[in-house]
Structures are given as C-alpha cells and as structure tokens.
C-alpha cells in the first residue's frame, strides 16, 4: 500500500481545501515558524484515528476546527481525507477491488466526528484496523511529532516494549 495524498479542509490553520501530495522518496516541508507545517503532521495522525486531543496540542478535539483569523470567521467543520493506493494488493481482501482507498474523518462542532472508508460510514475501530493492516497508524513509531524524538529514550521500559509490538 502507498499513501498518495492528504486533503485537508477546515483543519487547524488550513481553512481552504489543500492537497498535500505524498510521493515516493523524500519530501521536505519548509516554512517560517507558525505557518502550519506541524498542523499537516497532525492532520495525518487525526485521519488515522488519533483520539487523544493532547497529542494534537488541544484541550478538546474541537480545537482542530479552524477557529478563525483576523480576517476570516471560525468554521464549524473540519475534514481530512487520506488517499492510499492499493495497487500492490497488500490491503486485506475486502479492498482488492479498490485500486485506491480513501479514508476520511470529519468533525462538526457539537456533533462529534465520523469516519468513512470509500465514502461509506465506518467506526473508529474499523479505520484503526485498516491502518494497522497497512503497517501504520496514529501511534506509529515512524511518525515523530515535533519535539518528541527523544521521548522514546525517556519513556519507561514497559512503554518502550509497546513499540516493539508494532514490529512483531
């Protein structure tokens, strides 16, 4: 499976629909302090089922919804879609007919969030299972949030064992 595109809209500082293409090899992301680079990383974790708002630097999950700027009003909805290519057929059998698989998560103020896989409603658990089958997930050790690289070193031994389970 390959992750090919992240479409972000209304999520944190990305109020307008923005496509972030994920290509093979190494993609660099640059820009001044506070411009929204780490927000992209959090959009990826969020669509993959991140349920702890603190991991996204918020007190509650609604803080991911664009809350306005000096010139724009706040929004009520945030949506992120992750598009994956299943050309290598590595996803579970029920996805064999789908050359691409789109997973989206949408949150509306006061109404909570819901998930869709290829436009049909799914539970958080089903989404998390899909990403675990794909070898990734919101808590993947291969996704290192800003300032967190040394946290593996400072974690307690039992917490560290859990990352080993990912590799098992």
């Amino acid at each position, binding site marked *: 499976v390959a992750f090919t595109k992240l479409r972000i809209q209304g999520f944190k*500082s990305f109020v307008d629909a923005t496509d972030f293409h994920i290509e093979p090899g190494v993609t660099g*992301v640059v*820009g001044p302090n506070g*411009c929204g680079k780490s927000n*992209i*990383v959090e959009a990826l974790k969020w669509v993959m089922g991140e349920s702890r708002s603190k991991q996204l630097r918020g007190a509650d999950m609604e803080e991911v919804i664009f809350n306005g*700027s000096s010139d724009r009003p706040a929004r009520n909805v945030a949506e992120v879609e992750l598009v994956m290519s299943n050309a290598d057929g590595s996803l579970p059998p029920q996805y064999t007919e789908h050359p691409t698989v789109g997973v989206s998560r949408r949150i509306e103020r006061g109404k909570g969030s819901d998930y869709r896989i290829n436009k049909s409603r799914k539970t958080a658990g089903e989404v998390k299972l899909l990403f675990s089958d794909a070898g*990734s997930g919101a808590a993947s050790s291969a996704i290192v949030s800003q300032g967190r690289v*040394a946290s593996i070193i400072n974690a307690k031994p039992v917490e560290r064992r859990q990352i080993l389970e990912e590799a098992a």
Partner: protein
Amino acid sequence: GRLRLADAFKKVNEAFQETFTRLFNGGTAQLELIDGDDPLNAGLEIYAQPPGKKLTSLALMSGGEQSMTATALIFSLLQTNPAPICVLDEVDAPLDDHNVARFCDLVGEWARKSNTRIVVVTHHPVTMSRVDRLFGVTMAERGVSSLLSIDLDEALVHASTAEAG
C-alpha cells in the same frame, strides 16, 4: 504472540546495533528485554555507548546524542517492519552539521531501499538540499496556511529566504 515478539526483538536489536554504529561512526548499542520471564509483559531497556565514552545512562547523553540514538531505533523498527509512511518533524533541530549529514544519509538510503514515503519537516539548509522535492507552507494570508511547491534549484539559492516566508 510470544514467539513473534521474541523474533521481532531479535531483528530490531540486530538492526539497532548496526544503525547506531553507523550513525555514531563507532560505539556500540543494544536492546534488552527486562523485568519479566514473559516477553509480553517485559520492559525494553536501551543501552547505548557513543565511541570513546563509558556506558552511561541514556539521560546523561546530550540532546543531539539522544536524538541520534532515537533515530537509530526508529529506523531499526522500520527495517524490521516497513511502514508505508515515515514523518520526521524537525528531528534534525538538535543536531550539529556533521550529524545532520549522517541523518540525511540514513533517510535517503531507506527511502531508496524501501517503499516507505518519507516526509521531513525542517529549517536546516543541509536537509533542504538533500530531499527529492520541497513544499513550502506559507501564511500569505495571515492566519491561513497554504501550500506551494518549491523549485529545488531555486530553493538552494534561497534556502534561508524560504524560511522568512
């Protein structure tokens, strides 16, 4: 469960020793399962010894040494169980220029050897010059983020200007 974990441990440990020694140009490192006969409940201890130094607790290592050790572990896990995506958000921030170059070597090599797509957020001109493509995030409209693709050749000339947004 138990067998797979023991097998994964062995593979990650081998990869960790090799990757650590490459990143530090020497030294030794290893993982150990402690506190428990049953691997499913044990803890994972990390031992790391940069070249020329005594084995000390990880907490006494410097900021840069801890980042390099953690990076070695992250890539050992990737080598044992490849993931479709790897995202590193300013992991190069505490590194000196020498270590930034080694970090980029490791990242570039894994991206070529595997199907893992790697995204690196950085402010470091050396890292900017070593990627396959660059995206700039700007707030041309204040408080609102937008994305633009940066022409690599131009970026090398203006690596620091891109920073100024």
